[in-house]
Structure formats: structure tokens, C-alpha cells
């Protein structure tokens, strides 16, 4: 067994004993970055990331399946291409998957699942004590964990979208190059969605007693319900502004017409900049409220 050595004091700056040692603690953002570095490894290599990979692996599998069917000339994508019903091309399918799967499902679900548990996981694992007894503000801890969430989800989601893009867009003559600008916009949109939903549910996680249920009700209850109600109610959602930024042109006829009409029902007549501005407002205000909630709330650990 290793013998312990007598502790040697490290050099210290002059001390005013009753007061505080010179304020050498890191500033807010630097603290957040340090918390991010501390917890990033734990977040990336946990079971939760496996769950994330399964979620984003689904569309990749679908894309590969559709590509395989197309290569075997078994494409069932509505119509035979030669008659009155045009076929659905690869770019349209990609647009559908971005809208129908990533934006409507993956992004909000990851936001709910991980945003609501930024601090709650640390409390459940009882490791929050170490973070809250350091000379960093609790808000900085939350922001650091939030940045970790953003990095982890982006690292998992964006490659999935990229793979789907390169697999599915060439189906039935789609061009990878000509659709590239739209693809880049999609990537930006997804990151924005992850950021906004994550911030919103970080606040929900910091404030509410049952944040997961609250988040699920918001995403799968409130948001779809308000879309069906005419008027201004839909502006109290995130998806209203995100859907308004979706760049994809949908096919005019055939099997996709229903989907197109649904997309148009969600799209807003307001400008892109207006939607972006509102998203930034939601993002910032949710983060500020989350920081405030964490700074003022007590976390009693389970004994």
C-alpha cells in the first residue's frame, strides 16, 4: 500500500483571512467551458448516447433501404414516372425526412430528453455536489452542461443527416451538388432547433417537478394542437418558427401532395429573419430563465 506523504502547502497569494483569497476563480464563460470539458466525456460515452445513436440510426436505415429498393428498380414512391403521376425524387424524400423525422421528432425529442435532465442527472447521480461546491456560479454549471448537450447531440445528429443526404438524394436522378446549399441550410436549421429546444427544456428541467412529462406534453400535445387552431396560438411554440425556415420545395402532385399541404399549413407568411429573430429570443430568454432557476433552487439529494 502506498504510504501517504505529509501534505505540502502550495504557494498562496497574500490572504486577508477574514475576507476571500484574491478572486482567482474563472469568469462565467470560462467556468462554463471548464464544466463542459469535465462532463463532456461522461455525456458522450454514456448509455444515453447509445439511445441517441439508435434514434438517429433509424432514418439512416430507412435511407439505405430506399436506396436499395431504388437500385433494384423496386421504387414504390407513388406513380410510375411515365404517366400522369410524377415520381417522388431523392431530394423530396430527403426534405420529407428532414421535416417529418428530424425536425418534427428527433430534434424536439432530444431536446426534451436531454435538456430536461442537464442538472437532474447530476442530482440523481449525486455528483452535483462537486460542481456546486466550486467557486463557479450554478448558472455557469448549467450553461456548461447545456453546451455539452449541444455538442453531443450535434455530433450525433449532423452525421446522420449527412449520411441520409448522400444516400437518398441521388435516388431517381437527384443531384448532390445542386442541392448542397439546401443541405447546409438544413444542417444549420437542425443545430438551431437543438439549441432552442435544449434551452427551453433546460428551463423546464430547472423549474418543473416532472420536467420530462411536461416536455413531452409540450412537444407532442401543445405544439401539434396549436397548429390546428387558427390564430396566434401557434406563435407560442418553437416548431412554428422552425418550420417556417424549412427550405425544401415539395413535389406538386401525387403521393406527396398531402405532405406538402401539411408543411404549408405549418409554414408562416412571416419572413425568415423574423422567424430567426423569434427563435433567438426564445433561446436567450429560456437560457436566462434556466440560469435564474438553477441559481435560486435548492437541490436535496436522495438519501
Amino acid at each position, binding site marked *: 500500500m*502506498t504510504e501517504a506523504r505529509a501534505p*505540502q502547502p*502550495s504557494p498562496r497569494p497574500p490572504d486577508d483571512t477574514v475576507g476571500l*483569497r484574491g*478572486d482567482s*476563480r474563472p469568469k462565467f464563460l470560462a467556468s462554463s467551458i471548464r464544466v463542459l*470539458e469535465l462532463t463532456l466525456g461522461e455525456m458522450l460515452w454514456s448509455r444515453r448516447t447509445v439511445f441517441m445513436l439508435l434514434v438517429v440510426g433509424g432514418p439512416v436505415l430507412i435511407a439505405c433501404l430506399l436506396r436499395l429498393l431504388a437500385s433494384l428498380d423496386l421504387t414504390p414512391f407513388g406513380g410510375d414516372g411515365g404517366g400522369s403521376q410524377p415520381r417522388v425524387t431523392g431530394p423530396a424524400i430527403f426534405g420529407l425526412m428532414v421535416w417529418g423525422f428530424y425536425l418534427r421528432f428527433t430534434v424536439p425529442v432530444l431536446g426534451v430528453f436531454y435538456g430536461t435532465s442537464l442538472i437532474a442527472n447530476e442530482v440523481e447521480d449525486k455528483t452535483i455536489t462537486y460542481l456546486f*461546491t466550486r467557486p*463557479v456560479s450554478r448558472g455557469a454549471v448549467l450553461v456548461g452542461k447545456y453546451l455539452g448537450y449541444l455538442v453531443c447531440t450535434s455530433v450525433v445528429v449532423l452525421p446522420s443527416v449527412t449520411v441520409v443526404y448522400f444516400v437518398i438524394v441521388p435516388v431517381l436522378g437527384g443531384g448532390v451538388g445542386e442541392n448542397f446549399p439546401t443541405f447546409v441550410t438544413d444542417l444549420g436549421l437542425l443545430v438551431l432547433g437543438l439549441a432552442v429546444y435544449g434551452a427551453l427544456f433546460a428551463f423546464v428541467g430547472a423549474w418543473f417537478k416532472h420536467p420530462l412529462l411536461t416536455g413531452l406534453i409540450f412537444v407532442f400535445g401543445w405544439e401539434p394542437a396549436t397548429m390546428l387552431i387558427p390564430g396566434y396560438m401557434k406563435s407560442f411554440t418553437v416548431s412554428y418558427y422552425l418550420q417556417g425556415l424549412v427550405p425544401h420545395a415539395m413535389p406538386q402532385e401525387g403521393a406527396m401532395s398531402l405532405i406538402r399541404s401539411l408543411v404549408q399549413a405549418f409554414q408562416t407568411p412571416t419572413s425568415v429573419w423574423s422567424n430567426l429573430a423569434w427563435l433567438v429570443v426564445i433561446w436567450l430568454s429560456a437560457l436566462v430563465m434556466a440560469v435564474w432557476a438553477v441559481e435560486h433552487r*435548492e437541490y436535496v439529494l436522495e438519501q
Partner: protein
Amino acid sequence: MSPAVVSARSLSKWYGQVIGLNDVTLDIPSGVVGLLGPNGAGKSTFMKLVTGQLKPSQGSVEVFGRPIWGDPRAYARMGYCPDQDAFYERMTGLEWVTALTRLYGMDDAAAGQAATRALDTVGLSEVASRKIGAYSKGMRQRVKLAQAIANDPDLLLLDEPLAGMDPPNRRRTIGLIKTWARMGKTVVVSSHILQEIEMMTSTILLINNGRILAEGDVHQIRDLIDEHPHKVSITASDTRRVARSLVEDPHVLSLNFDGNRLVVETDQPDTFYTRLTALAAQGEVGTIDEVTSPDDNLQAVFEYLVKQ
């Protein structure tokens, strides 16, 4: 007299209907202070209030002259070793302590050096690059200590630091605590075992049911316990024979028959137990089936103190 490092004034904390800490007023000076009390006495609640994890329901607690709740600045001079066994299991001991030390504002190199020094101090340098998930219980306890001391704090709060340690490590940790005190640090150690606290310090705070029962020198408190008459309940096959053997002993203050039990009051419990053991071994008083002490010593001291 050195200024108080930790000050509590009418400090109370309750969780719904449950009172965790009740109207505690005290000052903790520099040196080692033992916080002694049974399980559920309020030791951890007090520690959590002092470390700013809980907000006082009433009263105040100050560390280094400032209220600790909502003010992270005091943590720069504080190290806390919690009682719970919780870590980032995938990290190595060195990685974990270094990462936590960086939160004090040190750069990577300085934090690494401080972490290495801390792990060396607690005897974990050989396993520093092993994952914490592979550590034994004693190693886990020591790595917790390491993260608490890495930034060379002026105030150390150790919640049950010897839990799960084998005797050699307990001795070593007690030695470290005494060394830290000699270096001028303030160390508050909580435990429910009087002998452990006695080995570290002579200054204790006795807490029970959320209240401070006594504070001061441990010898004085021990004397108080010894002066207070102890009741011992004996169940035997022939309680009258046992009573006849004990009645002439000078340390036996009274004898009472309660059904098939004999309740003895003594002012020298150590001497009495030795005498009773000898009687049982000799077999002259029949069989002794059961020996219990209906007095909770800490409660007895509290009642004794309340009556004074």
C-alpha cells in the same frame, strides 16, 4: 482568540414537517472541530448548510464572514468531502481530481500538479491512472478527500471521512487531519463514533435531533456522561441473586426489580460492566440472558444538561 471561520446564528432548516436543524448558534474557530451525533442527528444537514447546498429556513450561516448561500466566492477557500459515494466512474482518479481542480481557476498544468500532489497525499498515486469505477471502497473515500484538498483550502468540511476505510487507512487519514490542523487550516469532521473524533481533536460539537447538545472539550463532555448515572437492565434466571452480588458495590447507586428484570443505576458504567462480566463468567449468579442500557447516552446527556 482567532476569528470564527464559520458562524451560525439561530440556524434552522426544515423539510416540510421534518426539522433537520433547530435553532443552532455557534462559531467554529480554526483547528479541528468534531461534529458528533447519531445517524439522523443533523450533521449532514449542517454540513450542507455550511457548504451552501441548502438554504437556511431561518437564521443565517456565514463562512469567512459572508453568507454562503448563492455566493460561490467562498468556495475558493473551501474543500468539501461529502458522505455520498458518487463519482464520474469512467474517469481516472487523476482526471477527475484535475478536472474538479480546474474549476478553481487553475490552468491545466497547475491543476494537474495540484491533483497529483493531493492524490499522493492520500496514498493514491499508484492507482491515479486507474478508473474510479475500479477503485475499492477505501480508495473511493480517499479520492474524495483528494478532490477536497487539491486546491489547498483554508476550510475543510469532511462528512464521515473514515466511512468504509480499513484500520491502516483510518490511522493515516486521522494523521492527515491533524497535520492539516497544524498547518493552520480549519477542519470540521463529522462522525457518529466518539472514539474516532477523540483521536482527531478534543473540540467537539455534540448534535442530536437537530440541536447542539454540547460544545467544547471532549474530555469535559465525557466526564459529563460519566457523572450522569447510567441505567443498565439485566434479564437473568435469578435476578435476586444478581442483585445480592451487586448491592455492596460502591458504584451501584440503586437496584430496581421490574418484572423479571433487574434495573441497576451506576455512576461508573465501565467498572460496572467489568464486574458484571466477571459475575457472569463465574456462574455464581445463574445465567444472565440479556444486558441492555435503556439510556441513550447522548439523549441522557441532553436531558441531564437540560435539567442543569
